[in-house]
């Protein structure tokens, strides 16, 4: 899964992001919300549309915090540790445990796919005591 690093040629340097690209698909939002409701529960359209905006806000908020930490440590690539740190800093420490489990599972599966056992041993300038940021696909 060798994604190309972000480059200005990605077509986003002009800042012209389409409206629908700023939000997650309403169908996914609706599906996940429904699971969290009681069986006969419903969500009004206004609420659903607003939630759609809220989750984009959440993404921006968390990403910004993670990115700040990354920059402070003079790294260029936001990694998983930055994210976990951001969650705690922003008051979402409840998410830490599920996220760590998820990350462990992800590394296990991705490690199998790659066939390599690397998980933080490599000496690279981006390592910050956690996952090596460079040998993972950079998006």
């Amino acid at each position, binding site marked *: 899964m060798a994604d190309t*690093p*972000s480059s200005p040629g990605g077509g*986003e340097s002009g*800042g012209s992001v389409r409206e629908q*690209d700023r*939000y*997650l*698909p309403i169908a*996914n*939002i609706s*599906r*996940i*919300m429904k*699971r*969290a*409701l*009681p069986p*006969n*529960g*419903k*969500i*009004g359209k*206004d*609420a659903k549309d*607003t*939630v759609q*905006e*809220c*989750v*984009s*806000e*959440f*993404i*921006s908020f968390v*990403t*910004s915090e993670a*990115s700040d930490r990354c*920059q402070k440590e003079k790294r*260029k*690539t*936001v*990694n*998983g540790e*930055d*994210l976990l740190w951001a969650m705690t800093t*922003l*008051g*979402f420490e409840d*998410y830490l445990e*599920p*996220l760590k489990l*998820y*990350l462990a*599972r*992800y*590394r296990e*599966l*991705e490690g199998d796919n790659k066939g390599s056992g690397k998980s933080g041993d490599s000496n690279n300038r981006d390592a910050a005591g956690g996952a090596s940021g460079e040998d*993972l696909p950079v*998006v």
Partner: protein
Amino acid sequence: MAEEEETIRPEFPITRVKKIMKVDKDINKINSEALHLVTYSTELFLRFLAEKSSVVAAEKKRKTVNLDHLRTAVKRHQPTREFLLDSLPLPSAQPVRVTKTVSDKKPPPVGTRRIDAFFSKGKAKVDSP
């Protein structure tokens, strides 16, 4: 061990999450771990919003979650409140009720004379309804 699950399947399209993250021009590169964690944490957040809003709706004996329920749920969780409350639409506007009776015959300013007062002889009637 869940062997039947070969891959982690995010609930949202990863490419879309990436686009949203990149709206912020300060964001440079993101590794795939971070991207997956953002996606999963977003799912957790969404479930949280839904659950809490649903609780508020139930308190108000409603089956349908609406904006007010969502707003209350946001307010009740301090970290969420801090970054999200201002982004929510304002509380639903009440229909504007005209509380003052607007009469179309306002008393004219003092000293004003109606024009027909100029024409009525003898009875300089200054009408002030």
